[in-house]
């Protein structure tokens, strides 16, 4: 499968874009010409020049430096949340799917209850109640996103557990940990990773969206959504303040969409073998 991946131009382009973003985020402090948070009230809304490659914003801060630094906060938060929901979702969903019974019933009803709230609204309300701030934003988005993982992992575990090779493992004297880590996890891991990759795009949109509403990182920290929020009063006269952070989100979003579109073609035969493809795709449609 891994060799096939690179033959898809869409996946290749998507991954190159991602790589670019990652490199920028890692090297951000070395790439910025100015302190992104430093206010210069004597140089507001400057056009691009040698000192400020993309001009300055409404507080005279270097737009370019802010744009670059923001990548750290958006991507960092997205990766952190991804890690949290991956661990929580896979554990909970895996336990529910593997052991079934009352545990499964309890977990499923909790998921059903949380799904009664539209996801965006739940995140918005939790973030709102906890109050603005990056930590609260991470809690709120994680609280919503683990559900998808738990559901999909549960379903995958159930469908793999029904496979005859798991029954065979029992008859060969293997115990639960052996079955879970040797037979079930390796078979669903590729699909979890695919789902996680594609979900990262959604996470970035969610984080930016909540920050745009003023619920994420707080000023003066730079984050693309927050930068858009700050630019709102001024974008009619200075559209660049609004165009650039939005474009930054759009391009990384496109990278994930392209990867997703490419994976869809590749995954189909193998996933349908395990009856998983439709479930993964259906989950992602939401």
């Amino acid at each position, binding site marked *: 499968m891994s060799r096939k991946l690179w033959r898809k131009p869409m996946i290749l382009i998507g991954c190159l874009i991602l790589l670019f973003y990652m490199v920028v985020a890692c090297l951000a402090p070395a790439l910025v010409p100015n302190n992104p948070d430093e206010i210069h009230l004597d140089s507001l809304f400057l056009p691009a020049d040698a000192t400020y490659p993309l001009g300055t914003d409404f507080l005279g801060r270097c737009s370019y430096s802010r744009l670059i630094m923001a990548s750290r906060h958006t991507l960092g938060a997205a990766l952190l949340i991804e890690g949290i929901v991956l661990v929580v979702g896979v554990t909970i969903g895996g336990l529910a799917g593997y052991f079934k019974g009352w545990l499964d019933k309890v977990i499923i009803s909790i998921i059903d209850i949380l799904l009664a709230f539209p996801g965006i609204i739940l995140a918005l309300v939790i973030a709102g109640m906890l109050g603005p701030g990056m930590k609260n934003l991470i809690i709120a988005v994680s609280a919503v996103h683990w559900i998808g993982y738990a559901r999909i992992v549960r379903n995958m575990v159930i469908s793999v557990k029904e496979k005859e090779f798991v*029954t*065979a*493992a029992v008859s*060969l004297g293997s115990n639960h940990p*052996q079955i879970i880590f*040797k037979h079930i996890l390796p078979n669903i891991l590729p699909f979890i990773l695919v789902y996680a990759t594609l979900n990262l795009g959604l996470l970035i949109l969610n984080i930016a969206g909540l920050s745009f509403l003023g619920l994420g990182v707080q000023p003066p920290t730079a984050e693309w959504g927050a930068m858009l929020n700050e630019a709102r009063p001024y974008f009619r006269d200075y559209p660049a303040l609004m165009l650039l952070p939005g474009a930054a989100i759009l391009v990384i979003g496109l990278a994930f969409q392209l990867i997703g579109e490419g994976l869809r073609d590749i995954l189909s035969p193998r996933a349908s*073998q395990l009856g998983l493809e439709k479930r993964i795709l259906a989950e992602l449609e939401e």
Partner: protein
Amino acid sequence: MLEARELYKKYPGGAQAVRGVSLRILPGETLGLAGESGCGKSTLGKLLLRLEEPDSGSLLLEGTDYTKFTGKKMRNLRRKIQMVFQDCSGSLNPRLTVAQSLSEPLNNYFSLSAGEREAQIRTLLESVGLQPGHSQRFPHELSGGQRQRVGIARALAVQPEWMICDEPVSSLDVLVQAQILELFAEIKEERRISLLFISHDLSVLSRVSSKIAIMYEGQLVEVLPAENLKKQAAHPYTQELIRAVPVLGLRRQSVSRQPVDETLSKETPNHGCSYLARCNRANEQCAVQRPVLRSYGTAQVACHFPGQVSSNKTKGWITSCF
């Protein structure tokens, strides 16, 4: 002796899969279990290994009741009884090589060094007619017959005394089927293993079994020696099954022309014969009293009117009843 007593199993929301089955497999014997799809024969096989838990009834191995065994005791028991599965591509983990699949039972039951394990794997592969080179292949790189050989080797790895073969050849081509059946005969010969051989195909069963049990709707309706199958089958269902086996060179057979409605029998009431709706010799007694297995010549039959010829006087009763 491997024995099941009065096993019952019902799947949640589903039909009764196994209804009061008692059966014995004697050492060295091959018991063939036949029946149409969905009659509960696979479930019965899994119950014997406790891969499914029976609702009631008991299981005994050489007189020891293992129905309630757990943990280590059950693990040790499974060393004696092994299973070969129907779906040879589904019963092998697609992400493990042949060697890794074979290592699993070896690691679970024996403490072997890497070299010993490798030697064991080579012997196992050889004993099922595979090359040592196959050990590094993944299941999808093997043919159906080769996969089934791996499945058999895996079951043999723990040197079981009993083997339950759940439709081991039904997903294979006819020629491969013959080879695998040959392999089973060899294994049986060499290792003195007793088999429960489950198949929907009577012609397959008559080739490997010493005794044949016929299952219908979760119940055994007839148990008889394999060599007497054709001439002494006494239950109308067994007779129907035998007539339905296509024979090469025979142009037309006297199979009942009445279309079989497989959905009909699923709702049979709890009393009365479960074959009632499809039987042409049923009468009032069959509707109220469930027949149990009784000796009839060399066979055991669960029928109120066992025998070779259907009696004409009861014919037509069924139509007037409905």
